[in-house]
């Protein structure tokens, strides 16, 4: 049998006391892919990454190619990459039409999804626009409005960054930063919710805000209002001679690659994925769950599932009770 290993998971452990969630532990366990990239030729590493990462293959491929070009001195000013943008749209369609409705006790919109995937591939904005304004989608928006959670949206979301501007925030990436990224000393949320940055933070729950932001990004594309900064935006910059960094806005949020070259070989390869931001041990998921009513365990479990679904980890997740 082929050697096997755990491809990764997010573990969430809740400790409840006095009818409330008193502590939340989040751990994000994944194999360190950088260990097989070090020592490869640069071109080989860039081909290898999208082979291994199935979920955002286009985003990973662009991030790798742009980071390598940047390490060789080539800048990429922020722009929308059509392949990555299409991948983002398709991810949003999956989430919004298949995953969201059951969370709202509605049936998945399977036929709509099949049609919408075709429209996204063909660049048919008009038909997607009509779907997004259809009664079935309006029902989802109404159901989202009805979801009431006690916690408002956390205000700490990543700002819009491109590769060059990111240097001021993070002059160099490190292995520790890849596991526990922070923005100005604190965790921050990423994803469509951070890219949109126009949520009413006082009245909207994290759950509904995340989903609305995905719908908004789909609608922006359908109306031709998609701009640099939206999902699918890519940029890259040289960090120092032989070191390059790329930033890609994926469906789940900001993806960063930093390549350190030793001649034409990889001396180090650093990847910061969106899941590390949104499932940080002190991040926005923890903020959402701390202090929640734990009197009804089934209700709490549903709330955890909704929060996790809104933040959309790129690996399976599990809930444990301490």
């Amino acid at each position, binding site marked *: 049998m*082929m050697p096997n*290993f755990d491809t990764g998971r997010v573990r969430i452990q809740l400790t409840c006391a006095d009818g409330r969630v008193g502590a939340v532990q989040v751990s994000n366990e994944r194999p360190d892919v950088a260990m097989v990239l070090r020592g490869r030729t640069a071109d080989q590493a860039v081909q290898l990454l999208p082979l291994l*990462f199935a979920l955002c293959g286009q985003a990973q491929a662009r991030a790798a190619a742009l980071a390598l070009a940047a390490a060789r001195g080539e800048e990429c000013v922020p722009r929308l990459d059509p392949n990555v943008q299409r991948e983002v749209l398709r991810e949003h369609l999956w989430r919004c039409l298949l995953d969201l409705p059951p969370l709202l006790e509605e049936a998945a919109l399977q036929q709509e999804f099949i049609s919408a995937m075709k429209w996204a591939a063909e660049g048919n904005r008009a038909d997607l626009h009509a779907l997004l304004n259809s009664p079935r989608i309006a029902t989802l928006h109404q159901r989202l409005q009805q979801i009431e959670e006690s916690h408002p949206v956390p205000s700490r979301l990543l700002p819009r960054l491109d590769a060059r501007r990111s240097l001021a925030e993070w002059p160099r990436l490190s292995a520790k930063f890849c596991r526990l990224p922070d923005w100005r000393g604190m965790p921050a949320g990423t994803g469509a919710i951070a890219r949109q940055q126009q949520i009413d933070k006082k009245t909207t729950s994290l759950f509904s805000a995340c989903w609305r932001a995905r719908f908004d990004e789909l609608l922006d594309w359908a109306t031709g209002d998609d701009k640099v900064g939206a999902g699918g935006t890519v940029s890259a910059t040289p960090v120092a001679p032989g070191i390059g960094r790329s930033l890609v806005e994926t469906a789940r949020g900001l993806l960063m690659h930093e390549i350190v070259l030793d001649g034409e070989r990889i001396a180090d390869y650093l990847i910061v994925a969106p899941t590390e931001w949104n499932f940080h041990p002190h991040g926005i998921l923890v903020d959402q769950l701390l202090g929640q009513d734990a009197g009804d365990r089934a209700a709490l479990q549903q709330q955890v599932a909704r929060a996790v679904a809104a933040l959309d980890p790129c690996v399976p997740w599990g809930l444990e009770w301490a």
Partner: protein
Amino acid sequence: MCLGIPMQVVEVDGVFAWCEGRGRRERLNTLWLGETSPGDCVYAVLGQAREKLTVQRVAEINLALDGLAAALQGETNLDAYFPDLTMPR
């Protein structure tokens, strides 16, 4: 940043398919791909079949995953797992 697993479709069940690969058997949602047939090779991630793969691509991915598994077990000479790849994805 989820690692994918190449699998082969063994039985189609509506929009789902039972698939096998790397010692696992999983029921995958195939809506991302449209139609699938027994014998198709697919890239599996988060319970979804995300991409159809050629036999050549399956071999390359499996070798790379073997290399990662070996590295996780402490092996340091990984060259055999990472030959030059044959074609862009």
